[in-house]
């Protein structure tokens, strides 16, 4: 029998992280993944991640994937791709399909890091071609370079729905509506705001009545729902679309654990059927560990930390590290994980209505209900100040664990403080040099550089821009407000790029000065 110290099922962010830590501690590790490429969902993530430096914040997901693969290589991890684990049997026997045969392996420890699968919802027509998962849309666009459709309706306003909507726009699709049955946007406000300002209408408290079409989707009707999720008659809205994207949550792919006899629970807070495990991924079966979404739906940053913890715990289980060293290694990771699990969107706050920020400022109701902060609401946040000359306007209005902007500014104009979830403020003696580093560093695309009065009746607004083709300097178009509506004419002053911006372009437009605090997007 082929026998190794540790088998890891899944070469996504958590599996690879676990492999790296275990391998560094001397374990012989094999990672199996059924896909042809490693990295799990990371290579589909073209947006910049949140968090702090230790979480690789402001790095795009696929680049984190590349870094992880390099690390795994250096650590000597053996990753076998196109290798489908078909069963986890007793005595930690793993049977893997590789090519045209099955291979039996035994391991002294096993880490299951199989991730999650997309949920579906039903409505008349849900089985029509053209109704797809948001993750599937992402795979088509970002891995295969295929546009999922021309006109898309997105169901789901969680981070997946918001991020994928933005990516659909980037790939040239028209997103006709972003719909959610919940009364409030589920994902980060900054993700919603960057979609809303391009003109995508949000329909909260709405859901799909039916999809039309013979052999594929041709139209969709949505309607408002009341508190009991019943349709409100007369509230129907119909859109002609060729694609309906469903971003209605993920379910852990925990079948291997159930098969192996691990104690399971159905925990709605973790996204469904999950193994019962401790903070470091130990399941009820000695030597079998879990990490990442399979043990509870979160996101890639926390999955990577969980993976590292499980890798270290497995190393201790097999005697490759002592309990004391493990404890101190785990402590650092626990702090890092704790940092990610802070703020309004922390797992502990799931389902709670939060009305005020940690600073005691009212949360924007428009942001929750329409996807954007209204012009009158925006002034109350500490990142929004008025000064002479160019200065940052930080439209960050929710407490999320993220702080790259603070480090990005070479003049230390932006401060978050030691609490990573605090809203950024612009310091009093702000000495902005218009370098744009803050704009490009903000994973939420919520920072703008504004010169409210250029002296000639105009103002300039510099905004993060991630669409192709890039507008030409001197081009004239419309400036859109936070709500995506045209507010005025605008002329492109410059479109800048730099290596440090990591493909976020800085588009500066000139608008009449009365629109300095209103114009937030440029449309040719």
């Amino acid at each position: 029998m082929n026998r190794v110290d540790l088998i890891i099922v899944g070469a996504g962010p958590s599996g690879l992280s676990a492999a790296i830590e275990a391998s560094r501690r001397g374990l012989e590790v094999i990672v199996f993944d059924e896909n042809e490429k490693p990295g799990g969902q990371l290579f589909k993530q073209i947006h910049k991640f949140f968090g702090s430096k230790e979480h690789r914040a402001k790095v795009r997901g696929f680049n984190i994937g590349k870094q992880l693969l390099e690390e795994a290589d250096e650590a000597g991890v053996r990753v076998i791709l196109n290798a489908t684990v078909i069963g986890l049997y007793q005595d930690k026997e793993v049977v893997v399909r590789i090519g045209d045969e099955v291979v039996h392996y035994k391991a002294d420890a096993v880490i299951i890091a199989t991730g999650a699968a997309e949920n579906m919802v039903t409505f008349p027509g849900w089985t029509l071609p053209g109704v797809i998962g948001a993750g599937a849309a992402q795979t088509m666009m970002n891995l295969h370079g295929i546009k999922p459709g021309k006109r898309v309706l997105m169901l789901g306003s969680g981070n997946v729905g918001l991020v994928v909507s933005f990516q659909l726009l980037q790939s040239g699709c028209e997103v006709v509506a972003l719909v959610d049955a919940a009364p409030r946007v589920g994902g980060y406000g900054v993700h919603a705001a960057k979609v809303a300002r391009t003109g995508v209408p949000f329909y909260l408290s709405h859901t799909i009545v039916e999809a039309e079409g013979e052999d594929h989707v041709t139209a969709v009707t949505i309607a408002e729902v009341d508190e009991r999720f019943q349709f409100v008659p007369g509230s129907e809205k119909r859109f002609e679309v060729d694609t309906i994207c469903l971003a209605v949550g993920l379910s852990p792919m925990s079948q291997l654990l159930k098969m192996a006899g691990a104690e399971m629970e159905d925990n709605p807070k973790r996204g469904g059927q999950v193994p019962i495990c401790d903070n470091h991924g130990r399941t009820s079966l000695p030597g079998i560990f879990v990490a990442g979404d399979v043990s509870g739906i979160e996101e890639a940053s926390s999955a990577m930390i969980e993976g590292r913890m499980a890798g270290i715990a497995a190393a201790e289980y097999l005697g490759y590290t002592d309990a004391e060293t493990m404890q101190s290694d785990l402590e650092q990771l626990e702090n890092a994980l704790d940092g990610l699990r802070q703020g309004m969107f922390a797992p502990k706050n799931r389902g709670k209505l939060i009305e005020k920020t940690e600073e005691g400022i009212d949360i924007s109701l428009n942001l929750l209900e329409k996807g954007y902060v209204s012009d009158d609401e925006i002034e109350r946040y500490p990142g929004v100040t008025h000064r002479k000359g160019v200065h940052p306007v930080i439209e960050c209005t929710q407490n999320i664990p993220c702080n790259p902007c603070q480090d990005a500014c070479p003049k230390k104009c932006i401060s978050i403080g030691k609490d990573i979830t605090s809203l950024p403020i612009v310091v009093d003696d702000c000495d902005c040099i218009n370098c744009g580093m803050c704009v490009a560093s903000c994973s939420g695309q919520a920072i703008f550089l504004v010169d409210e009065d250029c002296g000639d009746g105009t103002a300039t607004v510099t905004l993060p821009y991630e669409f192709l083709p890039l507008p030409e300097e001197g081009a004239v178009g419309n400036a859109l407000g936070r709500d995506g509506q045209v507010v005025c004419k605008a002329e492109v002053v410059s479109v800048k790029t730099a290596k440090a911006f990591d493909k976020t372009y800085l588009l500066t437009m000139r608008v009449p000065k009365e629109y300095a605090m209103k114009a937030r997007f440029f449309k040719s």
Partner: protein
Amino acid sequence: MNNTADVIVIGGGILGNATAYYLEKRGLHAIVLEGSDHIGNGGSSRNGGGVRQSGRDVRELPLVMYGIKNIWPTLSEELGVDCEYHQDGNLRLGKNEKHKEILTRLATNAKGCGLDVRMIDGKEVREINPYLSDEVTCASWCPTDGHANPLTTTLGYYKCARALGARFVTGEFVKEIRLVKGRAGKVVCASGDVYEGDNVVVLAGYDSRAILGTVGIDVPMTRSLLECLVTEAQPHMFDQMLGTAEADFYGHQTKHGSFVFGGSSGFEGYNKDNGTPISNAITAPCICRGIMKYFPILSKAKIVRTWAGWSDKSADGVPVVGAIEEVPGLYTSCAMTGHGFGIGPAVAHQLAQLIATGETDVDLHELRYDRFHAKI
């Protein structure tokens, strides 16, 4: 809730469900206690679906023939559930002289009981089933055998018994039977619940041994872990039930198009029970190899599921069925030895008749619980 009934049935498999159904039809109220969380969770849901007479010991033949004659043909109609019963014959396949000897002996015995079963050669086999490989050189052929869907049949009986008023309680693991004035009258469960009835029927597979043991009855049996697998749906090929002289595999194509095959690795009876539904890592590949020898055409068919189930095996390979006279009011059918599904409806029907009237249409004497004696 009233925990008293005419009959307390222990075990919610096909035997328990069907017995409750036939009891209720006779006007006797039954409470069925199932130890697991699911109705039909033991061998009833884990077998290959054979409804056959050939290949059985002569002692159990009359009972299974009774069922095939009187119950199976109209069962779907009766239960209002598609039991997918097919009476298109059973081919028991052989590849060499040794196989031929085994098959011939079985066929001769069955013929003695009036069963139409005969030996055929390789050419005749392939006339009946053109998909079989040339390795098959002989077979026993019983045209009145067949197969059915164990899942829908078991749950169909449950549905109908429940509709007639039988009470079913799952997750109710029976700890012991208690005597009341010399009769089996009380059933005590691990939950602490107690049920009372004039009669108690033990239909609990291998667990029957421990339960019967609480009133001093021992049926000599062992158990072994058998496995099945199912393919994705295939175009319709044939309707016969198949088996082999060596029991490498057995099975059939279902109405759905999938093939259900059971088989073994040779370690049955020695497999470890770790309390999980894990099947053995080496068994399914072994079954696949067995099948492909007979059916090369299925090589590319995808296996979608495998599962394992415990089979309770009597010391002489024949089920124990009937009244346990030394404990009045106690009945059983256990140690079914892997034959329980096809024979199940007949067993249940006869047990219900026995409890209600004290008589049976089929003589059950050869299947008595106390037939086991030392060899010398």
